[in-house]
């Protein structure tokens, strides 16, 4: 019973009576102990068990991989069990054992089990020290040695509780993770690069760790503090993530706006100011595009003239040169230091959050290079935005900071909770929309999003937005450049043009997605992909050459969006606001007016800008520089919306009496706001491209501060999503996930086929299933198996003949454990038996066995072979499985991995299953 001391209060009472308040916590801290407990009947002493198992464990050192099963049509297996039912001696938890062995007995068994000095260490790693477990993660070999030393002091007779005391000391450290841990097998519980994580296993590990800390809390004040630290570490972590994200976003905003204006000129008195800041206190009344005497355009420096053909040529030249320089820097920095920093990052983050490992995708260098690169590439005037990369940057920060808290840093499933919160913070700072960020994380990127994570995301987004707002990067009291404040009513009829905008937005988005995917595919499979830097330079050159002549493409895209969103007031003197109107009172409603020639010219320029931006964004997104998609999409939609809005406005001006305006335009007030159309159009295109709905609407109304536009925005987002879904199935992120073949099991899709688990599982008929037996394979056997097969995990069965499932062991853990045992434990040779049971075989001949029970997952998820695939796919989605084992009549039949499921889904959807590349 002491084998499972973590459960039940009887243990506690027992131990507290026997020992000095120290409970024998720790023979099995790895969670398998508890899971096996749930399977077990609460009886059978350790001694009894070990004795019984040792009788069988010497048999069957089968090494060759015999055919595992031969299934007939019904899938029956004709392996007759040698022993069945409860009388099976391999079944270690049978009820027919004696009862009531005390701890001392089993302890002595441990001690006697192996002779000699090496005994101490072997038993410590096998049994006694299995508690200094994988949960703390990444312990040092030296620490393991110390643990063995403790064992050596009391190998045979000392009180186990005393020994446990020493060990729990070690554990306290390892679990709280303050210092380096005393894990005896480093790296257990981690994953290989490009592998899928096992959510269940990680969550169980965390549960175990949590339970341990809860238990320890009563011991001392220090442990109480450690428990408290553990409890709040999630909140502290997201707090730090929010702080850092806000700061980094501030740096990026300021740096990007400064470098963007560097293309036009410089502020010699204070070179760190951009044009607007340079002219901040200038009292000149000249309005020509914000220039003032403190700000020197490049043409002014070189020819001392601001106007004229020569000045234009020089400015043009400098614009292109700076753009090329920034683009070259961005592309070569990305290529040199962190290739993972290219692109938007959201498809990869989605994949990572769904339980995939891409090592160093969220690392330090990626963070630095992405932050610097996005500043450079935005400044280069490329048709891209910094909002998507902001999500990636925030996730990098989340990942890096989670290593401060071993609870998260060492547990991939838990780490994803922090990453979800970080993604929310990223959107929060990108748009100044904290709630939108939380919803974005929930709707678009996250996979596993419990309520706890929702609250943490909320907090994280709040902190990040607050910090960015305090930095005030744009000097407008908001965290985005294109914040506009609206408070104008809209007419019911306007819903029709809004829905029309939604449809146009959906069409533009579909055109964009298809064309961009086509181009990305072309880049992937053609020679173009071999020249990433040249491609960036070429696209930048073309963009700069085309963009400069048109003032609407020359300006920063965020400024363009701001211009299109804002109303024509007295302070706005762009040609877009060239109405024949007279400002009488800034507070009264702006009256409707006829459009002047400037407006018509601006509309034509805007239409040209729309075409240019659409085409350039198609070629830009996917280049090997950091590039986001939100801003170009918003700009496309805003241009469309503004043009439609101006048309509606002129309609209302010329025909104010038509029934559709229901008399609201007859009073002379400005009943149509083109800026609102721009906003709705922006939402429509962005919604069509990303297929967001709720989060999009919330982001948009947080941008405008107007709750009354929720219905127009919703209508447009919905129409756009419908049109987009009808014309092309996937949003841009899903399309890119599919293009790259990431193992992303979309929880939005439904699986509607009638296949069974038996159709999908590996191995197919006539192939053998690679299994490991629980106590009859030697180290050499297992190493041969690892060499000959490439599976990522192996089921452990009772024996080759009795393929009853014992558990599942991941390949990486097995590799590490074997290597570690060979290195650290003396007396382990190729002939040592590898034992996955908790029992100690009485065995005096041959080398001492290697006990690997602690790396065994004794609660693998199993299904029967007749389970419909719909259920299996659901399990994979909802439980986040890495693999499931297929049984028939209780015997192991095969394995279904996530890759199998993904390939099967693709196959059923008539797509090429070979596009699923990763494991």
């Amino acid at each position, binding site marked *: 019973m002491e084998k499972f001391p973590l459960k039940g209060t009887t243990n506690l009472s027992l131990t507290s009576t026997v020992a000095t308040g120290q409970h024998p916590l720790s023979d099995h801290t790895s969670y398998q102990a508890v899971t096996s407990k749930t399977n077990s009947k609460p009886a059978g002493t350790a001694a009894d068990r070990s004795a019984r198992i040792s009788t069988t464990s010497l048999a069957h050192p089968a090494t060759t991989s015999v055919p595992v099963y031969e299934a007939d049509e019904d899938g029956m297996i004709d392996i007759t069990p040698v022993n069945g039912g409860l009388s099976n001696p391999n079944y270690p938890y049978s009820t027919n054992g004696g009862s009531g062995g005390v701890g001392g007995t089993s302890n002595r068994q441990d001690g006697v089990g192996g002779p000699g000095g090496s005994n101490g260490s072997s038993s410590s790693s096998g049994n006694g020290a299995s508690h200094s477990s994988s949960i703390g993660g990444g312990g040092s*070999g030296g620490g393991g040695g110390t643990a063995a030393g403790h064992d050596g002091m009391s190998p045979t007779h000392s009180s186990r509780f005393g020994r446990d005391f020493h060990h729990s000391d070690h554990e306290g450290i390892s679990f709280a993770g303050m210092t380096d841990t005393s894990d005896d097998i480093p*790296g257990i519980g981690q994953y290989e690069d490009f592998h899928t994580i096992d959510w269940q296993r990680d969550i169980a590990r965390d549960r175990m760790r949590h339970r341990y800390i809860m238990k320890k809390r009563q011991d001392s004040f220090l442990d109480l503090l450690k428990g408290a630290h553990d409890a709040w570490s999630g909140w502290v972590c997201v707090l730090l993530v929010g702080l850092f994200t806000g700061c980094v976003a501030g740096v990026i905003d300021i740096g990007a706006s400064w470098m963007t204006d560097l293309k036009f000129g410089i502020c010699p008195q204070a070179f760190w100011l951009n044009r607007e800041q340079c002219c901040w206190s200038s009292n000149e009344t000249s*309005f020509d595009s914000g220039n003032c005497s403190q700000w020197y355009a490049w043409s002014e420096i070189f020819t001392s003239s601001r106007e004229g053909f020569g000045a234009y040529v020089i400015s043009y030249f400098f614009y292109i040169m700076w753009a090329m320089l920034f683009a070259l820097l961005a592309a070569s*920095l990305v290529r*040199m230091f962190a*290739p993972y920093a290219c692109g938007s990052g959201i498809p990869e983050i989605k994949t990572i959050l769904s339980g995939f490992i891409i090592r160093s995708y969220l690392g330090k260098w990626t963070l*630095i290079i992405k932050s610097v690169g996005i500043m450079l590439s935005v400044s280069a005037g490329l048709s891209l935005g910094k909002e998507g990369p902001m999500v990636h940057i925030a996730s990098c920060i989340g990942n890096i900071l989670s290593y401060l808290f071993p609870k998260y840093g060492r547990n991939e499933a838990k780490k994803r909770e922090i990453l979800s919160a970080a993604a929310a913070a990223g959107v929060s700072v990108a748009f100044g929309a904290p709630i939108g960020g939380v919803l974005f994380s929930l709707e678009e990127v996250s996979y596993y999003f419990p309520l706890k994570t929702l609250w943490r995301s909320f907090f994280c987004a709040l902190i990040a937005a607050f910090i960015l707002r305090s930095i*005030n990067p744009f*000097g407008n009291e908001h965290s985005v450049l294109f914040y506009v404040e609206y408070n104008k009513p809209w007419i019911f009829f306007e819903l029709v043009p809004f829905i029309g905008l939604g449809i146009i937005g959906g069409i533009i988005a579909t055109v964009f997605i298809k064309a961009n995917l086509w181009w990305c595919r072309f880049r992937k499979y053609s020679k173009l992909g071999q020249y990433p830097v040249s491609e960036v330079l070429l696209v930048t050159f073309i963009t700069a050459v085309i963009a400069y002549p048109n003032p609407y493409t020359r300006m920063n895209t965020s400024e363009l969006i701001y211009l299109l969103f804002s109303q024509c007031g007295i302070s706005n003197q762009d040609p877009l606001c060239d109405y024949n109107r007279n400002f009488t009172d800034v507070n009264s409603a702006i009256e409707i007016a006829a459009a002047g020639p400037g407006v018509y010219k601006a509309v034509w320029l805007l239409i040209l800008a729309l075409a240019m931006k659409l085409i350039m964004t198609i070629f830009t997104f996917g280049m090997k520089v950091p590039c986001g998609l939100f801003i170009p999409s918003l700009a496309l939609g805003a241009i469309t919306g503004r043009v439609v809005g101006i048309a509606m406005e002129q309609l209302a001006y010329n025909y104010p009496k038509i029934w559709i305006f229901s008399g609201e335009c007859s009073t002379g007030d400005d009943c149509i706001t083109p800026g609102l159309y721009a906003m709705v159009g922006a939402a429509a295109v962005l919604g069509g491209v990303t297929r967001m709905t709720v989060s999009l609407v919330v982001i948009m109304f947080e941008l405008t501060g107007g709750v009354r536009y929720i219905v127009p925005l919703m209508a447009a987002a919905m129409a756009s999503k419908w049109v987009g879904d009808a014309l092309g199935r996937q949003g841009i992120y899903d399309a890119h996930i599919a293009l790259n073949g990431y193992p992303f099991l979309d929880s939005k899709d439904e699986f509607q086929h009638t296949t069974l688990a038996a159709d999908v599982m590996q191995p197919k008929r006539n192939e053998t299933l690679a299994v490991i037996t629980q106590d009859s394979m030697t180290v050499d056997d297992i190493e041969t198996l690892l060499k000959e097969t490439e599976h990522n995990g192996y089921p452990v069965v009772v024996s080759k003949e009795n393929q009853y499932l014992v558990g599942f062991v991941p390949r990486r853990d097995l590799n590490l454990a074997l290597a570690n045992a060979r290195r650290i434990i003396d007396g382990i040779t190729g002939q040592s038996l590898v034992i996955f049971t908790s029992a100690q075989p009485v065995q005096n001949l041959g080398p001492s066995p290697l006990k690997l029970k602690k790396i065994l997952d004794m609660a693998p998820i199993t299904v029967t072979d007749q389970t419909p695939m719909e259920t299996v796919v659901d399990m994979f989605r909802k439980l986040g499985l890495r693999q499931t084992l297929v049984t028939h009549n209780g015997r192991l039949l095969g394995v279904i991995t996530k890759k199998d499921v993904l390939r099967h889904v693709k196959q059923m959807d008539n797509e090429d299953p070979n596009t699923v590349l990763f494991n």
Partner: protein
Amino acid sequence: MTRAWSLGSVLLLVLLHLATTQGQSYEDKRCKCICPSIKTVDNTTLEGTDRMLIIDNVPPNKCNCDGVILPRIAGKIKEGKGQEICPRCDCKYENRNTTIIKVVVIIVIWIISLLVIYMLFLMCLDPLLNKRVKANYQEHMNEDDDTAVTVGNGQDMHVRDSNVLNRVGHQQDKWKRQVREQRRNIYDRHTMLN
């Protein structure tokens, strides 16, 4: 890494010091008012294309027509007309922090220059020093590149690489290997981030 951190913090402190000690030639607060030209009131013509921009440094509660515009145009405008122009003016109080802007821009310039210098170093000089790298690479070949392992073997490594320089070199080699792998994935095999 720690060296880089301390260096960075020292740099930051120096920058902050510089930023705060230097006189601020630029104001951090302003009240910005935009009005139609005075002519629109005086001549009552509808010729309102050129506007008047007035920027003043006044407290926020004074940032309105009465506090900013009327004192300025008192001489230029007839008595009584002042109240006519006021409702057409748009006044906004804004503030900013030039110190933050300055520090951030200087940091950004520093980071970019450091990265560029390091990149040039890696491109030009590093192939010359490649032999040392090769040797180190061979030495550490058999080690798992997992961070957990590195942490785990901290003690051993401390014994082996007592020299800080060696450790840095080792870290750098590991990082280079990772980047090479990333490059292979993205630029050569095109398995990711297309």
